[in-house]
């Protein structure tokens, strides 16, 4: 803090001249700007993040509303136009696949599943991870050591092996995909939240609250949780694309959603087989998938920059 940063108010107050002090008071209460508002304004200035957010918003709208508007059903077979390239004339804007199913509607339906998996699995990992990490971090000591050792052990299990095992035992099932991905992703969340809680617990303002006699539950409510939110938000936006990617990978391996349902991963996998004869079956879902992943990553980066203004001053 430079002395030049001293506001006039402070200097006058020290000098004991009350007049400007009183004058300033007559102006009424000054509105404060919370770190959230600051972050929001910084985020709005980040062009990449804003663009990504807009694209993402449009994407979600199209994916949700699209399948209702388009006249084709996702499993309707148009025998007159199998393997049709994209054309406005026959109404298959994105073309059809080898059995005459409309690629546009399949891409949108697949998007519904992909995004759903992304959001639901992230929420699952958010709920487990935040509570687990916060408890371990706040109580510390033996509790912390046992809980985090357990995380290490689960972390060490090979994920793919775990998923394949689940699929073999319970059969392919979309709920199982949520569970499998969420069960692995919460580990990272728990680690991050625990670390953050540990360092927050040692912050001077938490100590100040303790010195004032504030009770544990109020400390967690007023001091720990609000300061965790930023990190959690950033991590959530970065987890969604990660989960979507994992789901696509599973689908590509043939372990993902089951026909007639589809996801971007499954569509890319199908399209890859007909890549030479009907490239459009690959290109459209692949573009949707890639754009989504990019958008989430840009939004996440933007959020991180906005919420963590280390190099602002």
């Amino acid at each position, binding site marked *: 803090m430079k002395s030049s940063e001293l506001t006039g108010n*402070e200097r006058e107050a020290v000098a004991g001249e009350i007049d400007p002090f009183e004058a300033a008071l007559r102006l009424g209460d000054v509105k404060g700007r919370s770190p959230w508002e600051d972050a929001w304004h910084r985020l709005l200035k980040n062009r990449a993040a804003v663009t990504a957010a807009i694209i993402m918003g449009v994407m979600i709208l199209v994916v949700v509303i699209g399948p209702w508007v388009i006249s084709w059903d996702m499993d309707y077979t148009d025998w007159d136009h199998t393997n049709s390239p994209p054309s406005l004339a026959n109404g298959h804007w994105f073309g059809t696949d080898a059995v005459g199913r409309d690629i546009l509607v399949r891409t949108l339906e697949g998007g519904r599943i992909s995004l759903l998996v992304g959001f639901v699995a992230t929420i699952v990992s958010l709920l487990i991870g935040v509570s687990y990490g916060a408890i371990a971090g706040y109580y510390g000591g033996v509790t912390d050591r046992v809980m985090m050792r357990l995380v290490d052990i689960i972390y060490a299990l090979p994920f793919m092996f775990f998923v394949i095992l689940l699929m073999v035992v319970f059969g392919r099932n979309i709920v199982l995909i949520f569970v499998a991905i969420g069960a692995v992703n919460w580990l990272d969340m728990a680690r991050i939240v625990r670390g953050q809680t540990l360092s927050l617990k040692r912050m*001077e303002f938490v100590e100040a609250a303790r010195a004032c*006699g504030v009770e544990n539950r109020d400390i967690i409510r007023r001091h720990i949780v609000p300061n965790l939110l930023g990190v959690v938000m950033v991590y959530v936006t970065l987890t969604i694309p990660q989960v979507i990617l994992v789901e696509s990978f599973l689908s590509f391996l043939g372990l993902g959603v089951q026909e007639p349902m589809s996801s971007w991963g499954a569509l890319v996998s199908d399209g890859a087989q007909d890549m030479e004869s009907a490239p459009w079956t690959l290109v459209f879902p692949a573009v949707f998938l890639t754009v989504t992943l990019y958008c989430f990553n840009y939004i996440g980066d933007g959020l991180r920059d906005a919420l963590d203004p280390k190099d602002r001053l």
Partner: protein
Amino acid sequence: MSGPASGRRRKQRPVLKVQDLAVTYDIQQGGLLRRHTRPLNAVDGISFELARGETLGVVGESGCGKSTLARALLGLVQPRRGRVLWLGEDLVGLDEKTLRKKRKELQIIFQDPLASLNPRMTVHDIIAEPLWTFYPKIARVQVEERVRGMMKMVGLLPNQINRYPHEFSGGQCQRIGIARALVLNPRLIICDEPVSALDVSIQAQIINLLKDLQRKLALSLIFIAHDLAVVKHISDRVMVMYLGRAMEVSSAPNLYRRPLHPYTSALVKAVPIPDPAARRRTATSGLRGDMPSPLDPPAGCVFHPRCPYAVKRCEIEVPPLRRLPQGDWVACHLAEELDLTIVKSG
């Protein structure tokens, strides 16, 4: 002869009496397999008294245990032994609930003004939090009125009540911290290096503010700092700490004129250098070596490896903190023989 101020004050019954206070941390050492803990005596047998309205300066290099001492006095860390008598009642070993009530009377101001304020709370909420805690049923209007009053008292504009810590300068943040500490009308404030993180020009303002408030509110202060220059103007008496132990407790004028302990003398000689970087370099001018690790403090007098006057006896026998005829306290075998009077040069 002790200074007149401390002489007058010492006749009163002390509000705070600390007896043989010791704090030990368990330090984890070793790798995954051969992990073991070693005790670190951060504070080792500190005793002092504090009168109403008196200021005790506590000075020492970083790592000498002064911050731990502050936290132990408030019950934020558990002492291993010793007593902290507040108005005659021992705070050590009190259960959390009773201790919480006592915290109304003992408050602390922290070193890093910004870090000691929750970035997501407004000034109003920060200053009001102690009120909410101790008077849960207090009316909202009353809280706001009190908060505005406190802001005015510490030299902040009350119309900034809805702003957030990051919208203030370091000096202003420290004022918010002071307002928070004062809002419950405490009787003792522990200032843990309250100005070390501030610009030099602002340091004086904050120290003057504290002095002012102390006079108005009849506060007792414990003022912790890492160099003597800062505590000089505010302290009635000064305690010099080294490796968790008190080396000397003297009235401020005596300490600056004629230190009793060789370590104090080294610190006093280091004071007049205004540039902080140079000060750090010469903080222990005339001393050999560095401060030993508190994990294995030297035997005998803890200061002997660096003391220019050390004799054989110093390596074996621990010098107790004892009172000299003029009323000051020192922990040195040779206190009577040494003349460490500071010769003002220039």
